[in-house]
């Protein structure tokens, strides 16, 4: 790996990517993506999924490279924006920023909000940079390796991705896996690729092409979220005074505390980001725990320790970048946000997977280099231009939600200029809100929806080659190992839920 040829390749690829990322159009969409991402991330209650699904329809009208550059920008931009609300309002802008509240808000109360904001921006940038460097180094290697994969390996990989994603999310494991199945089922609606037969279309012509990811994402994330928050959400008071460029200059002590937590956070984040099912949220909590453990004086944490915001913010931004590795090189998204990005590629007729890196290098490396540009832009947006976002935090929510609702409707309508598409969003909004009330998670559904049809293809292929012999799934070492891991995940969750069950039974027995 350290051979000069490897480095030469890397630089050639980087140059190719930069060439594409620096085209006026791509540059513009990258800037648009990160700006919108920061804005929507900074608004509490609008997480990365809502932000991405709101802007999803616009990607239909763009070139595929520009589309994912923009959607990617929204994705990692929300992590920057989310920390603003955490620090100033004590309300996380997105779940991955929740841990930043612990020390960010106390810092703001001590009048150090400006330093907290500038230092999180810098550590976010460090985290993201390390994530991108790892992505540049490992993606081609993983893609090369994955070229050997057969259908059994892909099936096992998708299974592990789905299982891991649904067990890592909080809430009931049974319900999460059930929702994965619901998602797969919805994904199977439409024309069967092998036989051309229509499945679950009930005679409707519109259903022959399948349900649209757009309608599902907008309904279950966007509108359902909106219904729940219109009347319950109260924007907080923001103290804008004291957030000046001059006040953002950190002290010598702050700077000396920047490097190690950032690097540790970036390492933790890069690792968890690349794993399926984990990601920014878990990485930021891990990083916080690590910072507390290595600190000379752990009692400072929770009272405005700057390491407590630097580490987690580096971690969640690194995780956001490395999450692209499995999505683009294997075609396996580890989180619903990446499933949306994968969905956009599929809609544009591009199959993510090991061949993407070799067959569409301009797209892959263009995207990677756009991450650099996007993160530099985010640094600018979050330090010299921070005042804008701080002001936007106090925009009253009652003015915002008609606008969000309007952009959902017009966005969906703009794709085909068909009323049918909005009716589908309305249907999925009702379903999504019902799911929310019943405690059925929406994220596994979207993952299942995107991966379901691909899983069917690989499942059928494996068994066609083997003549219906199921041992084909465990014949090859890689797929056998992965299926073994799946079994372990299942076993572990069953055992741990039984344990918990017994504990609650004992506890409630004690009450009586």
């Amino acid at each position, binding site marked *: 790996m350290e051979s000069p040829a490897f480095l030469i390749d890397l630089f050639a690829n980087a140059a190719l990517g930069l060439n594409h990322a620096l085209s006026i159009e791509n540059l513009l969409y990258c800037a648009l993506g990160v700006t919108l991402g920061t804005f929507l991330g900074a608004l509490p209650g609008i997480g990365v999924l809502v932000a991405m699904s709101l802007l999803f329809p616009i990607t239909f009208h763009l070139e595929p490279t520009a589309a994912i550059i923009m959607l990617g920008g929204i994705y990692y931009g929300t992590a920057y924006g989310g920390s603003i609300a955490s620090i100033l309002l004590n309300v996380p802008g997105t779940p991955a920023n929740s841990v930043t509240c612990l020390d960010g808000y106390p810092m703001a109360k001590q009048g150090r909000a400006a330093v907290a904001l500038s230092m999180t921006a810098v550590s976010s940038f460090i985290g993201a940079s390390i994530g991108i460097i790892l992505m540049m180094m490992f993606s081609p290697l993983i893609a090369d390796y994955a070229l050997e994969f057969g259908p059994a390996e892909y099936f096992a990989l998708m299974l592990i991705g789905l299982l891991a994603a649904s067990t890592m999310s909080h*809430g009931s494991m049974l319900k999460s896996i059930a929702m994965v199945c619901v998602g797969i089922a919805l994904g199977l609606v439409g024309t069967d690729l092998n036989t051309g037969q229509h499945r679950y279309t009930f005679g409707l012509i519109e259903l022959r092409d399948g349900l649209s990811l757009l309608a599902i994402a907008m309904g279950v994330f966007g509108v359902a979220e*909106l219904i729940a928050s219109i009347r319950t959400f109260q924007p907080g008071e923001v103290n804008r005074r004291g957030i000046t460029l001059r006040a953002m200059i950190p002290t010598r002590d702050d700077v000396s505390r920047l490097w190690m937590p950032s690097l540790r956070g970036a390492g933790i984040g890069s690792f968890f980001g690349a794993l399926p099912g984990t990601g920014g949220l878990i990485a930021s909590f891990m990083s916080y725990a690590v910072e507390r453990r290595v600190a000379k004086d752990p009692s400072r944490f929770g009272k405005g320790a700057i390491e407590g915001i630097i580490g987690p913010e580096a971690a969640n931004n690194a995780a956001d970048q490395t999450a692209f590795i499995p999505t683009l090189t294997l075609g396996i998204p580890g989180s619903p946000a990446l499933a949306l990005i994968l969905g956009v590629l599929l809609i544009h007729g591009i199959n993510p997977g090991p061949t993407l890196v070799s067959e569409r290098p301009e797209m892959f490396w263009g995207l990677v280099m756009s991450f650099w540009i996007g993160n530099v832009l985010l640094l600018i947006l979050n330090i010299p231009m921070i005042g804008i976002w701080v002001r936007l935090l106090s925009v009253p929510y009652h003015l915002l939600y008609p606008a969000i609702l309007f952009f959902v409707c017009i966005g969906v309508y703009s794709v085909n*200029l068909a009323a049918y598409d909005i009716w589908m969003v309305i249907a999925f*909004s009702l379903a999504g809100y019902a799911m929310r009330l019943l405690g059925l998670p929406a994220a596994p559904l979207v993952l299942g929806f995107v991966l379901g049809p691909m899983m069917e293809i690989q499942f059928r292929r494996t*068994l066609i080659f083997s003549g219906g012999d199921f041992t084909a799934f465990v014949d090859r070492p890689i797929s056998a190992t992965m299926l073994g891991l799946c079994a372990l995940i299942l076993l572990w969750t069953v055992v741990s839920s039984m344990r918990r*069950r017994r504990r*609650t039974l004992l506890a409630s027995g004690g009450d009586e």
Partner: protein
Amino acid sequence: MQQHRIKDRIAGASLLLAGTGFAGYAASQLSLGSFAAMGPGMFPFLIGAILALLGGAVLTLALLDGNGERVADDVMPPEPIEWRSLVVVIAAMTAFTLVITWFGMLPAIFALCLVAARASDKLTVPVTLAVAVGLSVAAWLIFIEVLGLNFRILAWPF
């Protein structure tokens, strides 16, 4: 806790029903084939069956338990149903859909805003109209000027 139990019973029952329906359709309307040569119905049948099993498990656990939280294990407490927001949001989207197909984009924006305003006590008619004007300008800029889409701004169907 009572709410937790009811919530899980409904969730389990709906999942069970959905799975049975999905598998049932596959078994009755599509050919299953054999594992060596799968028909279009085989994979959906398997998924439906697994879904029905999981739904059945959620339902059984919710019925067995004195309090359903053990099944759900939910961090979030059950939230109250926001009836007013639900009705208003769905009505606003419906109004938009109907008006845009008959009368074009501009009236549809105003219809959506005026209906959506019913969800909040703070949105008075003048404020709502101002929001609608702002959105019209934004929509014209983004979708017509930048993306170059062929929207009908005003139409008369009769």
